[in-house]
């Protein structure tokens, strides 16, 4: 049963899934909706609230599904539209919502629109795309995939013209100046919402329009169109959301929230590398600085926080010096680097150090925003840097120590990608089944943290105030919402640390540790001293002295 709440996404824990990678229901070596339905009980058990599915549309798969060849059907290998509907029903029945990726900016060059458009300048679909007889227009626009693309224009010999693309050359950009395109993409959204979807993660939204003499990103026309989409969504549907993928500085992402009338949510891209920087450099500065530069957002909006996803750990929003530092510390092997980033999973990035994994998860679970867990990171899955592109972080989910990690009963050679089988992260060692059996596994820890987070809307809705203890290795902040104040303290260092916190404002309160419900010494006017284990953290509820002590009225006479 879904809990009715128009702001549900503010409290939700998201879980990102690649359909092909999660579970194979028909034994062909590729994950599908049938398999996914079979794993919904696990996801419910874990406690996540919303599933985010990567593109499952028909595609030539030159960009792992982000090159869509048909927006309104399901790739044959994943199932049918009916399967999607059944999956949505089953997820909803278990109290989970589902959003999916929608690639607004471009299509595959195999999309019938493009195939028709390239045939002649008179084609009805010609103006679905952006054409030019030269490759000099919009010269200020940067090239995003600098390691594979030389230009944002590619010559099409059949069309006898250049076409515009901000990503791969096989992904021509749609022409949003064409009202038919705008309507067609709106209709696509309506189609999926009518199937029961709870929203969209909108891919590459800053690039919808092009204007000369601009960098062709974040243009006002783009915002106007996005507001149109939101209006349509709000008029017809309830509790559906739009999540923006805009890999930009927070101040540049801020307009995508509008006045609460554009996107409900947006990823906080620059925070993610700074969490890693903070831990490696043992200083809170990069993290606090990033929040200092994060503007306020409308009350009905929310940031999405993440540690890892299906892409590389992007360093686009890092300075050259920061990038060098990140490459040096987290991606020394060139095979780990993709585009401007590092294509590794969480556990390998953190040397499989359980303490650091917990610490970083604790940060994204407690900072302002809704956390997203990338499939497999809840068990500390590893990656395979030998695979091409970003496939190394998209390997089959590791369910058991059986053949193909329990992902598929097929011949191992049939798998869409090999399972991780190395000595440290191999499926024989790292899998759901074994971690479910072990009460102190990372999986159980994640489940507990999700459960604790759900108890306090403060995490999703509260304000944040950073404390600034003299010890810079300690990151401490207070989250407040209504009458609840939570104190979150993190030791970013690999050695034990102590810190004295100025909690005068909370003098008299009794800190209760949220994971074990143990009571800490009372807060006074004096500096509050805490010691933390290496990479240790505390989640403390600063309960007013008499809060929660209100009696039931039956305690003394119950017997």
């Amino acid at each position, binding site marked *: *049963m879904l*809990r009715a709440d128009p702001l549900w996404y503010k409290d939700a824990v998201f879980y990102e899934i690649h359909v092909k990678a999660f579970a194979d229901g028909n034994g062909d070596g590729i994950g599908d909706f049938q398999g996914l339905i079979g794993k919904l009980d696990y996801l419910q*058990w874990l406690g996540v609230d919303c599933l985010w599915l990567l593109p499952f549309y028909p595609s030539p798969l030159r960009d792992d599904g982000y090159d869509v060849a048909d927006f309104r059907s399901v790739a044959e290998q994943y199932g049918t539209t009916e399967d999607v509907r059944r999956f949505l029903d089953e997820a909803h029945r278990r109290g989970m919502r589902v959003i999916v990726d929608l690639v607004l900016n471009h299509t595959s060059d195999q999309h019938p629109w493009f195939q028709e458009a390239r045939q002649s300048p008179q084609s009805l679909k010609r103006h679905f795309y952006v054409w030019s007889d030269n490759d000099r227009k919009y010269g200020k626009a940067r090239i995003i995939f600098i390691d594979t693309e030389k230009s944002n224009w590619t010559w099409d010999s059949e069309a006898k013209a250049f076409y515009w693309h901000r990503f791969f050359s096989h992904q021509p950009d749609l022409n949003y100046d064409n009202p038919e395109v705008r309507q067609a993409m709106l209709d696509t959204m309506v189609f999926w919402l009518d199937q029961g979807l709870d929203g969209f993660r909108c891919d590459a939204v800053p690039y919808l329009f092009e204007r000369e003499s601009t960098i062709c990103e974040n243009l006002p026309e783009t915002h106007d169109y996005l507001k149109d989409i939101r209006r349509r969504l709000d008029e017809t549907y309830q509790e559906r959301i739009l999540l923006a993928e805009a890999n930009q500085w927070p101040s540049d992402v801020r307009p995508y929230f509008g006045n609460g009338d554009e996107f409900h949510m947006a990823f906080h891209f620059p925070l993610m590398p700074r969490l890693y920087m903070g831990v490696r450099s043992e200083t809170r500065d990069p993290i606090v600085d990033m929040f200092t530069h994060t503007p306020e957002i409308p009350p009905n909006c929310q940031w999405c926080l993440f540690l890892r996803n299906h892409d590389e750990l992007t360093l686009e929003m890092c300075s050259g010096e920061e990038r060098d530092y990140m490459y040096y510390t987290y991606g020394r092997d060139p095979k780990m680097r993709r585009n401007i980033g590092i294509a590794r999973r969480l556990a390998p990035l953190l040397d499989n150090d359980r303490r650091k994994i917990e610490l970083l998860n604790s940060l994204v679970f407690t900072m302002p925003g809704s956390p997203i867990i990338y499939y497999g990171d809840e068990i500390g899955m590893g990656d395979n840097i030998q695979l091409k592109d970003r496939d190394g972080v998209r390997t089959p989910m590791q369910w058991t120590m059986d053949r193909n990690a329990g992902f598929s009963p097929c011949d191992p050679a049939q798998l869409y990608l090999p399972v991780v089988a190395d000595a440290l992260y191999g499926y024989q060692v790292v899998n759901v089944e074994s971690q479910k059996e072990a009460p102190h596994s990372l999986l159980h820890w994640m*489940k507990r943290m999700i*459960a604790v987070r*759900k*108890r306090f809307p403060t995490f999703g809705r509260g304000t944040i105030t950073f404390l600034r203890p003299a010890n810079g290795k300690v990151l401490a902040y207070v989250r407040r919402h209504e009458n609840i104040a939570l104190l979150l303290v993190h030791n970013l260092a690999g050695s034990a640390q102590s810190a004295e916190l100025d909690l005068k404002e909370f003098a008299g309160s009794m800190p209760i540790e949220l994971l074990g419900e143990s009571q800490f010494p009372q807060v006074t006017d004096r500096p509050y001293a805490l010691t933390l284990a290496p990479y240790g953290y505390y989640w403390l509820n600063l309960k007013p002295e008499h809060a929660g002590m*209100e*009696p*039931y*009225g*039956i*305690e*003394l*006479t*119950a*017997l």
Partner: protein
Amino acid sequence: MEDSFLPESARIWLEGAEPVDLVIGLLTFNDTTTAPSLVRAMIEGCARSLPQQRILVVNCDAGSQDGTTQAIEQSVGDKARLLTIPHAVLGSSYKLVSESGVPGRESAFRILATVTDKLNAAACVVVDGNVKSVDEHWSQLLVDPIVEKGVDCVLPWFLRNRYEGTLTNTLLAPLTTALYGKRIPYHLGGAYAFSANMIRSTLLPQPWGEEIARHGIDGWVMTLAVAESLQICRAALGPRLQQVKPMGELSDLVAQSVGCLFYLMERYQEKWETVKGSAPIPTVGPPMGMGAATGAINVERMVNGFRQGLRDLLPVWQIILPAETFQQVLELGVEDTDGFRFSPSLWVQVVYDFALAYHERLLHREHLLKALTPLYLGYTASFVSGTRAQGVEQVERELARLNDHFETMKPYLVQRWRWHDE
């Protein structure tokens, strides 16, 4: 007879002591304001209604620091013989919750049983030192059934207001009734009386050093009374006024009292699994109804307590409760406080499922028992809000209905309990 647990001084005293007819056991711990008048009332009551009886007052004290034992000595004076025995208090005893506030009650009971037996007394009355409402009638009500009618165990029955004893009325008493077929009030502590026969045949052979001692003596004695083939009755003692002592956490209280019942269900399986229906036990003393006062019950806080359990204990409940019961409990989470209704049948189902999970050791037993607390709060909140606007008679009818549910749903418990054992 094993008596090594007795203090040396008590053993020596007993060796030279003359036989007595009645032992009045007084359990104290810092009860200087209540115990002296209490003991006086008991002695005077005996003098009036049992003039021929030779009485020994035994004060088992848990180490009072407020001069309780001296005050009792003064109060007893030469009106009766007095033996003061400081009883042992094990570390684990401090965790036990009791309205009397006397730690180590199980040690004190064992001492009293041993003294009674050694002195060939016909009966032993045990009274908590913090009770203020003891009057001279108590001696007669507690002792007469044993001396005159051959009863083995007299259980206390106090006049209570409608929402006093919520755990007793909604779980402990109806479950005991359904299990053992005897409708007892299940009022824990205050006062009991035991015959020499019960002491010799039932109390003394108990495994005093084993796990059961960690569940508190009161539920233990209560279950012994109904599970063993003993003659029992209840004594209507009027209201129970007492010096209130700290009771600890509600979850500790639930775990201890319910744990005692569940623990003894394993021991007495053969006794209860064949019992069908129930019958009242005889009463001595004037008939009593239920008081009308409601007290300051905070229904909203209890519903919130239930909801917090729903948030925090869901994975635990999912292990304990079968899918259908779990689903019904889940659905309660969406009710607002005013519309919150936890049905009696669901409550009984929950209690039986917890008993089964306890038996099957699905979880650490203390965690399991404590996890029942929010559900108890939920059912109690529903019970109170559903009857608050009604008269006392309606409350009594609802409780009778609940008893019926416990009895009619018992076959489910028996079947699944046996199924596990097979």
